[in-house]
């Protein structure tokens, strides 16, 4: 009848058996459970790094390039450069003979604004004349001027007296 006027009134909402004392207390076992959960979280969080690294190791991201003859070895003297196109006819590239058996080849579109890059024999440097960008011939990395990214390197090898382009190393775009 007038039970709602009694304070506190008799409970009839079935929550009297829910005991929340110490609910948030972290005991030894609960702490250990948390640590195991955290270990699992760390394990899962390194999975993407590991799997991406594994795909890199297996070479799944490497592009395949067709081999292409560039020039006869005895037609290119030491210190000379030769312009060719690789991998397609529209990608101009530059081959430099640095020593008897040392060659470097780069796609010679400057990484600044894609002007052609030339071989400067006297300075032993690759030069982009548009804005005076300079590249190191050994690595293709920029040494001066506006370009900030290295030239894409083309792998070459000598096969039967001919210099052959075998592929393009991965590069920043």
């Amino acid at each position, binding site marked *: 009848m007038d039970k709602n006027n009694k304070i506190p009134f008799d409970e009839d909402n079935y929550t009297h058996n829910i005991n929340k004392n110490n609910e948030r207390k972290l005991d*030894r*076992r609960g*702490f*250990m*459970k948390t*640590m*195991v959960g*955290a*270990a*699992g979280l*760390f*394990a899962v*969080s*390194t*999975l993407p*790094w*590991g*799997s*991406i*690294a*594994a795909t*890199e*190791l297996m070479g799944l991201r490497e592009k395949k390039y067709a081999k292409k003859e560039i020039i006869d070895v005895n037609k290119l003297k030491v210190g000379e450069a030769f312009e060719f196109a690789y991998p397609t006819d529209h990608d101009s590239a530059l081959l430099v003979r640095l020593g008897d058996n040392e060659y470097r080849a780069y796609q010679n579109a400057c990484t600044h604004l894609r002007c052609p890059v030339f071989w400067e024999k006297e300075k032993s440097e690759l030069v982009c004349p548009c804005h005076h960008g300079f590249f190191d011939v050994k690595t293709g990395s920029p040494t001066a001027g506006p370009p900030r990214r290295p030239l894409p390197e083309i792998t070459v090898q000598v096969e039967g007296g001919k210099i052959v382009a075998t592929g393009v190393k991965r590069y920043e775009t």
Partner: protein
Amino acid sequence: MKRSYRGVILLCAVLFLNIIFTQKAVHQYYYEDYTATVIYAVLNLVLFPIALFIYHKEKNV
């Protein structure tokens, strides 16, 4: 009742190693040292069953 806190200490050590391996894996990834990245990721994965094992051993001690 006297409790053994060996499990707590061991699990703390496991989590510490987890942190180290995660950081190492990420750093070696950016250094393009992919073998090391894979090794650290695998080590991190191995630590989880170890942690579970420690928990089961120590929960009632």
